[in-house]
């Protein structure tokens, strides 16, 4: 079997065996509906409550402030659309950034078609939101600030604490899409003045199809899915019990190993980056060098295109991702790479590698050696490289 090195943990992660094990009894043994009154359902109801408690404790929230959803995207949609609706009598202005995930950006664009005004804040060359611009963007009609905790493409960690303070000063609700940060970075909703927070299970070795929205007590937000009384009537529908149990287990394990994991991943990350920078010319690191997710590497190789790079890496057993147009299905490269000021042709040559604690230094060596060969090969067939070398 060919060697397989999975470096796309920002896309999804391997479900931990312990998580699967925790989930299994809730398919065949404890399959009762948590809403039912008989004793058979009591342990199910209790287990769901336990998972909710565990998750609440990981972000310093109260148990009743955690609402399970079908994932991070749903949580983002709910937070933004429902807040817009709930606070419409106060105003119609929302502030977000240009580097958000599409779950936030497209939701904001949808609201713009329905009478809301949205400010998309610029970021600096590291992808960090400019706080002065945020302050300037606030209007009397601003009802929501939604800015991500950490960027999914370039790994930059946003100044969430400062944003939370600004939001609090102005009495504006602050939502953060923490899908890439939850379970990877310490988060305390009170310290950071977070009003709502979205997270996802499958980014932290939990199951897919489960996420949560934290809604601070007192935040006026309507139900998103109407129906039964589940999730305090705000998100109806029978609970995805096995996934909730799995998410609880994954959250507990992620919280327990966070510090150790971050150190290990950051060490591998920095080793990979430093080898690439030392051994491959005409490459840049995208995103903030230190205020960065511990497992994120994002590089832009000049003169080559990302999709061809990905396919050749795949043929050598390496799974990565790219912000090139060819991988996004449009002619434009990633909006994040453009927002940090990369010219189109350099953004086309981007490569994102997101590590896990399971990766090793030997794997990083193999990856760097392979990237070197593949980049050289693609440059040798690139007319841009040919012109560059001739004009040098």
């Amino acid at each position, binding site marked *: 079997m060919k060697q397989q090195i999975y470096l796309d943990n920002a896309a999804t992660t391997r479900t931990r065996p312990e998580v699967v094990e925790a989930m299994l009894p809730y398919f065949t043994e404890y399959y009762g509906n948590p809403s039912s009154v008989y004793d058979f359902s009591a342990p199910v109801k209790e287990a769901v409550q336990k998972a909710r408690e565990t998750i609440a404790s990981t972000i310093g929230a109260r148990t009743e402030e955690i609402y399970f959803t079908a994932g991070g995207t749903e949580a983002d949609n709910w937070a933004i659309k429902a807040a817009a609706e709930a606070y419409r009598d106060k105003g119609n202005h929302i502030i977000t950034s240009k580097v958000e995930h599409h779950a936030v950006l497209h939701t904001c664009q949808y609201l713009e078609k329905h009478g809301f005004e949205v400010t998309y804040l610029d970021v600096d060359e590291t992808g960090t939101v400019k706080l002065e611009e945020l302050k300037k963007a606030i209007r009397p009609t601003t009802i929501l600030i939604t800015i991500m905790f950490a960027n999914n493409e370039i790994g930059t960690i946003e100044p969430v604490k400062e944003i939370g303070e600004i939001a609090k000063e102005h009495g504006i609700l602050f939502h953060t899409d923490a899908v890439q940060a939850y379970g990877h970075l310490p988060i305390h909703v009170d310290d950071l003045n977070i009003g709502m927070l979205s997270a996802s299970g499958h980014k932290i070795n939990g199951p897919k199809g489960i996420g949560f929205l934290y809604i601070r007590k007192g935040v006026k937000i309507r139900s998103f899915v109407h129906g039964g009384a589940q999730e305090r009537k705000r998100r109806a529908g029978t609970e995805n019990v096995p996934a909730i149990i799995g998410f609880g287990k994954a959250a507990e394990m992620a919280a327990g190993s966070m510090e150790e994991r971050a150190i290990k991943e950051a060490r591998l990350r920095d080793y990979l980056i430093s080898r690439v920078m030392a051994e491959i010319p005409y490459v840049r690191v995208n995103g903030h060098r230190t205020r960065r997710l511990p497992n994120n590497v994002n590089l832009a190789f000049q*003169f*080559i*295109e990302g*999709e*061809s790079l990905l*396919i*050749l890496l795949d*043929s050598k057993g390496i799974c990565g991702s790219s912000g*090139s*147009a*060819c991988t996004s*299905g449009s*002619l434009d*490269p990633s909006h994040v790479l453009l927002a940090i000021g990369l*010219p*189109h*042709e350099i953004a*086309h040559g981007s490569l994102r590698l997101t590590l896990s604690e399971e990766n090793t230094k030997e794997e990083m060596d193999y990856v760097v050696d392979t990237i070197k060969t593949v980049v050289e090969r693609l440059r*040798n*067939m*690139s*007319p*841009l*490289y*040919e*012109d560059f070398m001739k004009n040098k």
Partner: protein
Amino acid sequence: MYTEKVMDHFEHPRNVGEIDNPSGMGTVGNAKCGDIMRIYLDIDENQIIRDVKFKTFGCGAAVATSSMATELVKGKSVQEAMKVTNKAVMEALDGLPPVKVHCSLLAEEAIHAALWDYAQKNGIEIEGLVQPKSDISEHEEEEEY
């Protein structure tokens, strides 16, 4: 995503390189969109394409279509080379995903651009050949950097 033939031509591209003092050279595409193809032709006095080389910046499909296009025109007369359409290139590759069809158009345009350059240099007319429109200007490229 890609057929075996596309993968073969991407992983083992034919005729990659440059030709010194080519009879004709054409560059098409745009770095902004993520595709640039350059074709070099060496054409003999009987208007037969003796040799052809290419360089491409682009995705797997762009590289594969360039490679296949060079195979299809090599050894042909300039008139026969005019018949190498994007459709012919796609068929020879057993098809391309719908989002990649523009890559095959680029391959056809690159050949036409190189033939145009040859025709201009030699003051001849090639039946059916019109001045290519998507030739990238140096100006545009410089602006990007």
